[in-house]
């Protein structure tokens, strides 16, 4: 094709051309659903027609060979239709109940764990990390693989009190978003500035404007225009690093991992909630991050043992109280847990509501 080909500005294609025909037939006609077993959804239409969905986990970062294997399965069982979920799970749909078990067997045999439905631990939504991003403190795919290996039974089962949505983010920008559990890089030292490069690479006013606590000021270093950071003010957020790569924030030791819990996007029961810091200072221990896995599993165990049906992580903790959460998980509570950001006072206990 010609180098000068004009793009066809077509936007997103119509989904119906790709959908399983049963979905097209019953579009907007669904009456109810249930889950015959973990990993399987049954949606029943007002017309009486049923669609079975079998859901399986993937690695998101898919090589073409894996995609083709998924396609083979879809060709065999689903007339060549396949769908991915918002969390990169794969869904196979069929109207034929008899196909469900064979489909499950095949998926498991090919190495795709079946599950992720209902009150399971879903796949961990994650970000780019060392594989692709220009500012990452860790490798999200690696953290997620290591963790999913440990959590696969919770993915396959539906034994949690409610859905568990875990996310990871490889820097504090948090492309992974809020989660019931969020596993995020937390830098602990101010950026290390390569003064020789600043003048050449960075638009200084832009960088200064990016700092949330106004800790950066222009400076002359060795006669060259550079920047300096007020280390007392700096909250080590790394926001200056993308616009100014010479302000290196990543550090093999001091870029730690923090764990946050109780984020919730849904407006179900409670209003949506932000996740809350529970653990920090965990080492960025590639390739399998055992310290992170240990904390995540401790939290999940406490939740699983104690929460009531339908309570999301954050709701459970609100009911039992944060004192009991820290007690149950044996995580230390420190001054860093006390919110100091704007409006942080709202997170103080301004009541006689106490948990003992």
């Amino acid at each position, binding site marked *: 094709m010609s180098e000068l080909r004009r793009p066809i500005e077509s936007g997103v294609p119509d989904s119906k051309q790709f959908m399983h025909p049963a979905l097209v037939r019953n579009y907007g006609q669904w009456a109810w659903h249930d889950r015959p077993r973990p990993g399987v959804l049954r949606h029943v239409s007002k017309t009486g027609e049923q669609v079975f969905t079998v859901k399986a986990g993937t690695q998101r970062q898919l090589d073409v060979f894996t995609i083709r294997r998924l396609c083979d399965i879809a060709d065999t069982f689903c007339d060549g239709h396949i769908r991915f979920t918002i969390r990169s799970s794969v869904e196979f749909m069929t109207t034929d109940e008899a196909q469900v078990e064979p489909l499950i067997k095949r998926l498991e045999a090919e190495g795709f764990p079946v599950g992720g439905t209902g009150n399971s631990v879903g796949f961990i939504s994650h970000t780019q990390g060392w594989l692709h991003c220009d500012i990452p403190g860790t490798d999200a795919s690696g953290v997620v693989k290591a963790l999913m290996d440990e959590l696969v039974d919770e993915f396959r089962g539906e034994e949690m009190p409610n859905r568990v949505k875990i996310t990871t983010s490889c820097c*504090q920008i*948090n492309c992974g978003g809020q989660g019931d559990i969020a596993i*995020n890089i*937390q830098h*602990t*030292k*101010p950026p290390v500035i390569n003064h020789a490069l600043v003048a050449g690479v960075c638009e200084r006013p832009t960088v200064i404007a990016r700092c*949330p*606590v106004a800790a950066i000021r222009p400076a002359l270093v060795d006669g060259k225009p550079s920047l300096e950071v007020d280390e007392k003010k*700096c*909250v*080590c*957020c790394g926001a200056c690093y993308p616009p100014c790569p010479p302000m290196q924030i990543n550090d093999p030791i*001091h870029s*730690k991992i*923090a764990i946050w819990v*109780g984020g919730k996007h849904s407006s179900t029961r409670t209003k949506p909630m*932000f*996740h*809350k*810091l*529970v653990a*920090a*200072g965990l080492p960025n221990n590639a390739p399998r991050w055992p310290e992170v896995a240990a904390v995540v599993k401790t939290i999940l165990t406490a939740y699983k043992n104690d929460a*009531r049906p339908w309570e999301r992580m954050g709701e459970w903790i*609100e*009911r*039992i*109280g*944060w*004192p*009991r*959460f*820290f*007690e149950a998980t044996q995580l*230390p*509570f*420190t*001054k*860093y*847990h*006390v*919110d*100091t*950001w704007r409006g*942080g*006072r*709202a*997170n*103080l*206990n*301004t*009541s*006689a*509501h*106490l*948990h*003992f």
Partner: protein
Amino acid sequence: MSKKMPSTPMLDQLESGPWPSFVTGLKRLADGEGKRSNDIMKGLLGQLEHSYQTRKGYWKGGTVGVFGYGAGVIPRFSEVAEQYPESSEFHTLRIMPAPGFFYDTKTLRQMCDIWEEHGSGLIALHGQSGDIMFQGCRTDQVQPAWDKINEMGFDMGGAGAGVRTAASCIGPARCEQACFDTLRAHRTIINDFTDDIHRPSLPYKLKFKFSGCANDCANATQRADIAILGTWRDDMQVDQAEIQAKVKQLGRKEFINQVIRMCPTQALGLNDDNTLDVDNKSCVRCMHCINVCTKALKPGTDRGICILAGGKRTLKIGDLMGSVIVPFMKLDTDEDYAELLDLAHRALDFFADNALEHERTGEMIERIGLTNYLEGLGLELDVNMVTQPRTNSYVRTDGWDEEAAKWNARKPNAAE
């Protein structure tokens, strides 16, 4: 000096209606001759009517006090003294009542007599902070009136930038919910701070209030720099037979609606035999179910106090509620009281040393951060102090390991 009753057509409209009329009271005080109060009140009625007509106030402050004290008198000089000379000076003496606002009639009558002789005869029972406000005194009568009141056994209340008059709910004197002795705590603290009440030299005011339980009948949480509220840390007391009676009385559906459904932490379940399933670990000691089932439910037996700091009204950063600085401490023995007193002194000292001018405790905490405040008072951080941990990652955490070690080194929860 003798003067005619002023014409008060607007005020007169406040004499009709079923509620007791303060205007009728003012007129009764003015309606006579010879007594100091008669004269003062004639002037006052005139000025007040003038305020009603013009919709403006006409008092200004000044400096009036009693010998030995730096505060407790609120001086009022009239800006329209030429028109209403009899009430040109209309100062108030703030006097602290006994905790819980108890009186015998002998005491009250004696107060009335003093105030008829030296003042206007107008006494507010009580001011919003809890003072007896002897209102309407000429400058020259302040000292003699005070001398008599003081001889009766009453002391001056707070004003200005000092410790203020405290308030407490009736507590164990007549309330089954009281988890500590509000009246004793009130008296213990206030009587140890008389110097700071009478000779104010703080950055701004400091108020204590005492409520026996989370119902907070003394409005402590929102209106005291240091709020002391009763609570308990064991299980609540349940009389299941009385619960069953209550379910019967209300009906099942209504019992579910009024009790089960209204518990803020879903700590209550209704068993099929109409007994109550209490999850004490989830309970936040809010008092609701106990209020509804006064016979069936009671606070636990391991009672004590929690302390909140920083409540106040609007100036200057917006209203603030107090927030927990001590989730639980016992308050039974003399040693317990001594410990509370000691803490109160630390709070005062830290405030004196660290607050900016005209800054209240709550604003100071907002400025310096709760953890610095706790450190300043020598208090240990507790999870009950937060509604939730931080939601924002903008914090420098390189001291994490040391802080974690501190926590691990001590018992992790005040409850244990």
